[in-house]
């Protein structure tokens, strides 16, 4: 018995009892008919009642005990409260309930199923309920045993609990240590109480170095006081903090940690513990920084280039854009991302179908390039021509586009230039045509009027000499009349063709000449010859001329000079210059080339007629020039360039208000007059 007591005090479970003691316990149980069952369903020793029994123990007990139930009622110490079941008058069974745990979840039920053979009298006596005292020694013995057992089982239960909590603790410890993230547990004074192995790895300090220190051990010096102040302010007010911190390992190495702090409070609200979790993000941070830098460099390069680039994530329909691209596409300022529908919404309605078609082609994988031109209409802005080129950069496993990079350019200026160019070229050819037609009419009229004049003259002579021959005279008269009629027709045709053209006025020759290189460049963009203007003073007095015609003369002469210059010259230039001749009240214009030279400089001076010019193979251009210059009252001639090549000169009269009247403002085709 003494050994048992010691054992109980040691708090060991029943299964660890020495075998003899176990037998003893088991004997007691059987002798006393003890069934120990916890109300929570845990069995300590004896038979395990099934679940339904536990649910309604009294009923079960009733069934088991039956009519032979025996109740003992006795006054026991306060440790053993009695569960009064049946009144003393009824003698069926005795039930004793002894709480085995503090929370009264476990009770030991002791009941007697039969009186012990050795003590029938007691039993009977008891059952009659008259005399308790005679059975008290036995009862006391039973109670002793019961109390011992109770103590055994109580400690067993406690031990089990301890085991459970130890197991839980072990599990908790394993989890604590198994965690990849470093965990530090501090008390309210911020002293480290525990650290897991990850913390050791992370910080480079041993556990014994960490425990007892404060997290200040890890300070990197990269964060200033304001940073820590803000952190503690948040921790103290909300109990939590989350962010990125730079710390220093034991070896001095700098590393970036993602830190989370949680506070555990006591029941009275004071701080009990703080848990800090650290994850090493150095690699990630460096990678991010590197990526960010790389992106910034790229962005910078793109921005510097002035290109409006946008990056389209087709899958998510998210487009990242540079400031320039947003501006070009008419998106609001400060737009960093947009959707493809935003872009399309700003396209002018007429252009939308083709834009959508091109986009669809790209999205459906039919095309890997995007090449569209469209007009953008942004509120408060003028219409803008935009050219967009894009290419698919990545595709998914099914070959569908995932990422498209595009550049959009504002083409408005170019468009304006192009239509201007088109208009100018049209105008130039129109003018050339009109001038040509006009000059052709002039040339033709002049040429036809010569023979007609001769015919009229000869017929007149005939008339005179045939004074005596009336028939002949009549015929001669007829000839004269027809000749004059022919002339009339020619003049009327001439008048008609002239009405279409602009007339003569005071014109600034320098302004007119300054346009020539531009016109030539327009029509001969690949020419290797440069047209220069030399010594044309802007103070030159105005000439009296039809500007369009003089332009045509210059253009023709410059073209001829350029043709002459192509084959062999060292100097690839054509120079236009002017000289004022105050005596003859004219300006002489020189067109100089350093080309192959005219085979016959007399060419100009011997030009008698249209036929002769054709024989010389000069071409219509030159004929027109001569015609225009002479019609203006000027002269055209050529001399040899002493440095090799030709100089063509032509004179144009100066405007004299006493002699010249200005033609009314010209031609509806909008030729700009100087």
């Amino acid at each position: 018995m003494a050994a048992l007591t010691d054992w109980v005090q040691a708090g060991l479970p029943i299964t660890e009892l020495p075998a003899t003691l176990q037998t003893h316990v088991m004997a007691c149980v059987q002798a006393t008919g003890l069934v120990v069952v916890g109300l929570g369903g845990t069995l300590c020793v004896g038979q395990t009642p099934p679940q339904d029994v536990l649910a309604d123990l009294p009923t079960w007990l009733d069934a088991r005990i039956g009519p032979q139930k025996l109740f003992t009622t006795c006054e026991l110490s306060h440790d053993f409260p009695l569960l009064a079941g049946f009144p003393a008058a009824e003698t069926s069974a005795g039930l004793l309930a002894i709480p085995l745990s503090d929370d009264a979840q476990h009770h030991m039920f002791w009941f007697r199923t039969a009186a012990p053979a050795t003590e029938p009298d007691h039993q009977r006596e008891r059952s009659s309920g008259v005399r308790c005292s005679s059975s008290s020694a036995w009862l006391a013995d039973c109670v002793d045993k019961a109390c011992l057992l109770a103590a055994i089982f109580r400690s067993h239960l406690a031990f089990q609990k301890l085991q459970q909590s130890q197991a839980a603790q072990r599990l908790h410890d394993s989890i604590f240590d198994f965690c990849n993230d470093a965990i530090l547990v501090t008390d309210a004074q911020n002293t480290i109480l525990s650290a897991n192995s990850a913390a050791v790895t992370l910080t480079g300090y041993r556990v014994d170095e960490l425990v007892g220190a404060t997290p200040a051990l890890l300070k990197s010096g990269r964060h200033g006081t304001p940073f820590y102040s803000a952190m503690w302010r948040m921790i103290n007010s909300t109990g939590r903090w989350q962010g990125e911190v730079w710390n220093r390992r034991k070896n001095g190495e700098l590393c970036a940690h993602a830190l989370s702090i949680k506070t555990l409070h006591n029941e009275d609200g004071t701080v009990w513990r703080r848990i800090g979790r650290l994850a090493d993000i150095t690699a990630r941070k460096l990678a991010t920084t590197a990526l960010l830098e790389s992106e910034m460099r790229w962005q910078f390069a793109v921005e510097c280039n002035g290109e409006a680039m946008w990056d389209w994530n087709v899958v998510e329909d998210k487009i990242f854009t540079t400031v320039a691209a947003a501006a070009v596409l008419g998106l609001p300022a400060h737009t960093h991302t947009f959707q493809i529908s935003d872009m399309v919404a700003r396209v002018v309605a007429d252009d939308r179908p083709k834009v959508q078609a091109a986009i669809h082609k790209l999205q459906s994988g039919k095309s890997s390039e995007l090449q569209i031109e469209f007009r953008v209409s942004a509120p408060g802005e003028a219409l803008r021509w935009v050219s967009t080129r894009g290419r698919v950069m990545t595709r998914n496993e099914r070959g569908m586009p995932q990422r498209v990079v595009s550049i959009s350019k504002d083409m408005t200026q170019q468009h304006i230039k192009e239509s201007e160019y088109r208009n100018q070229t049209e105008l130039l050819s129109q003018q050339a045509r009109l001038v040509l037609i006009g000059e052709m009419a002039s040339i033709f009229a002049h040429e036809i009027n010569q023979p007609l004049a001769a015919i009229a003259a000869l017929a007149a002579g005939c008339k005179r000499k045939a004074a005596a021959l009336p028939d002949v005279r009549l015929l001669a008269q007829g000839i004269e009349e027809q000749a004059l009629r022919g002339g009339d027709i020619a003049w009327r045709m001439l008048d008609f063709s002239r009405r279409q053209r602009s007339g003569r006025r005071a014109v600034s020759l320098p302004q007119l000449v300054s346009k020539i290189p531009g016109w030539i460049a327009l029509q001969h963009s690949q020419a290797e010859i440069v047209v220069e203007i030399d010594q044309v003073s802007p103070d030159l007095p105005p000439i009296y001329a039809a500007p369009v015609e003089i332009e045509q003369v210059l253009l023709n002469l410059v073209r001829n000079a350029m043709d002459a210059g192509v084959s062999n010259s060292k100097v690839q230039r054509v120079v236009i210059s002017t000289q004022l001749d105050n005596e003859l009240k004219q300006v002489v214009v020189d067109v100089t080339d350093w080309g192959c030279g005219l085979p016959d400089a007399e060419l100009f001076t011997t030009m008698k007629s249209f036929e002769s010019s054709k024989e010389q193979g000069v071409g219509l251009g030159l004929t027109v020039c001569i015609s225009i210059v002479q019609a203006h009252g000027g002269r055209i001639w050529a001399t040899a360039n002493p440095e090799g090549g030709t100089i063509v000169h032509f004179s144009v009269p100066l405007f004299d208000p006493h002699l010249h009247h200005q033609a009314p403002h010209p031609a509806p085709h909008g030729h700009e007059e100087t």
Partner: protein
Amino acid sequence: MDLSELSKDCIGLIEDDDAVRHGVCIMLEALNIDVKPYACAREFLEDTAARKRCTCLILDVRLPDMSGIELQKQLMLQPPVPAIVFISGHAEVSIVVEGIRRGAIDFLQKPFKEQQLIDSVQKALAHARETQSSQLTSEATEEKLASLTGRERDVLSWLVKGYRSKEIALQLDLSPRTIDEHRQNLMHKLQVTTIAELMGLCGLAQKVQ
């Protein structure tokens, strides 16, 4: 040149087309004039004798070496300028106007009637004569004025202002008789009989000057 001595009028014809040139010559046969034909401006300018004799020119606007207008301008640099009749197969209004404003007599469109040409030529010749005679008159007057002595000139200047002999005598500090003598001499030299004529002559001289 003496006005009384009438030689044949001389006309220059500058026209590059042979047939037209020939035809014009035929037309002008009806008139009793001397026609000098040229095929280009240079030919005419080089013929300095004809240049002096021709009082009238028939000029085509379009010539191989220069335009008729330019030739007109050149001729105007060296007076006396012959009276010009322009002929043209295609000339524009502005050219015509320019030519006329510079003093051309007429502008004929080819083909023209014989009569048109003749009328123009005669008009030109008449104009030429008039210019010549006024030129001559002024030349003659110049000569006569040059023949006066200094004293005679002085008297003339006062006379022309309307002063009488007595007043002039006072001005020049001479006797009225001397003044009268000067007056008689100068009027004789200038071949005028009345003061009115004198004044007219001087007026003309001044105008010509």
